[in-house]
């Protein structure tokens, strides 16, 4: 077994240090080493998006990034999306639009949609669907998820171009 490596990173705004084996993914590190179980394992090969996190502002599948790659990085997980007790507009919209059933895909969808709205505050329906194509949901048929993202975009207060 390779020696565990020391990694210093920032997670949800908090400076965070951990030890991990090189073969441990970010998903494993978050869940097994740091107790952040919001990111979910659905496929472990980059095809469902349930493990999505933001890495330096970019949405990534945390199952396809190694923990050792986080040295010096800035990570946001689903646990860091809300501002304290104030839910993010996406989280509020998912609740109001009934955009979740079992909820296992929800963290990935919200993280991924946040990355979209951060870069494009007023996407149209097709843009939302294209951006979220890497996030699988088996409960909702996507209808209410897409509506929730569009609603959150409208609610975000960002200027319409």
């Amino acid at each position, binding site marked *: 077994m390779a020696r565990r490596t020391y990694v210093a990173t920032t997670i949800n705004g908090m400076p965070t240090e951990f030890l991990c084996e090189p073969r441990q993914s970010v998903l494993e590190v978050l869940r097994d080493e740091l107790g952040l179980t919001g990111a979910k394992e659905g496929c472990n090969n980059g095809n469902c998006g349930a493990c999505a996190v933001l890495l330096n502002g970019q949405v990534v599948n945390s199952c*396809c990034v190694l923990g050792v790659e986080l040295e010096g990085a800035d990570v946001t997980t689903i646990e860091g999306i809300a501002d304290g007790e104030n839910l993010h507009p996406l989280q509020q919209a998912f609740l109001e639009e009934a955009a979740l059933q079992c909820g296992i895909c929800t963290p990935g969808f919200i993280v991924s949609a946040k990355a979209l709205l951060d870069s494009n505050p007023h996407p149209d329906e097709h843009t939302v669907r294209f951006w979220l194509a*890497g996030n699988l949901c088996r409960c909702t048929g996507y209808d209410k998820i897409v509506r929730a993202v569009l609603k959150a975009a409208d609610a975000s207060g960002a200027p319409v171009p």
Partner: protein
Amino acid sequence: MESFEYLAPRTLAEAFAALGNGKRSLMLAGGTDVIVQLRENRRSCDQLIDLKHIPELMAVDIRADGGLDIGAAVPLAELYGNRDIARRWPGLVDAASIIGGRAIQSRASFGGNLCNASPAADSSPSLMAHGAVLTIASAGGTRTVPVDEFFAGPGRSVLQPGEVLLRVSIPPQPARSAVFYHRFIPRNEMDIAVASAGVRLVLDESGDRIASARVALGAVAATPIMVPAAAEAVVGQAPVADTFAKAGEAASAAAQPITDMRGSAAQRKHLVSVLTVRAFEHALQRIREGR
């Protein structure tokens, strides 16, 4: 997943030193293929060498001569997120924006996609249509290889032990030209190409005749293939449906596909003709729209 060491060299020299230390090495760029392959025991190594801290591999340079140099580990999303690149090289965006989902594109790179050497890789036909050239570096120096000569078989390239793919260079594209790449997949995203076609169409000064063309196909042979016969079929002809149909026939004739869970040989042979024709039509549209 078997255990391995992780190295993150800061310079090419450090990388070459690591490559020469006698251990079995694999390169890590975006990791979206290699990490999964290691996890599924489809590849193994003693050490994984992360190339993303080497400046040359992360550089993007729009050259003064109209060419484009792309560091081998530059993430796809960074490429198509660059407005100049998206505007001037839409044929690259065609491929870069459909490899995996958006979360994959934050990490995956053209270099990684090429070195993975899947016959169905989306980047290959697009880059081949562009006439891209690869720069390969080793401790002994660098060499260049046209991208169409890079593949040696499924999962195999001409990359030798000790070598690193440094960058992908897009030469200046001819006037009145456009590249278009597309693929056929059963879903509308998140699939491996059943078949794919990348073409470059170049019109003559009159705009009424085809001056030259390049046609590249994916997922219909052991490697991505160039189809010179499809290009020859259109040169000197008017850019119209009948002409493109001839290219489609030539593409279909050159295809030597297999049947697997993603599609049948007959389906693929049929599809590359359809895709080649449509790629030419879209490329023509791009020229006409001045894109």
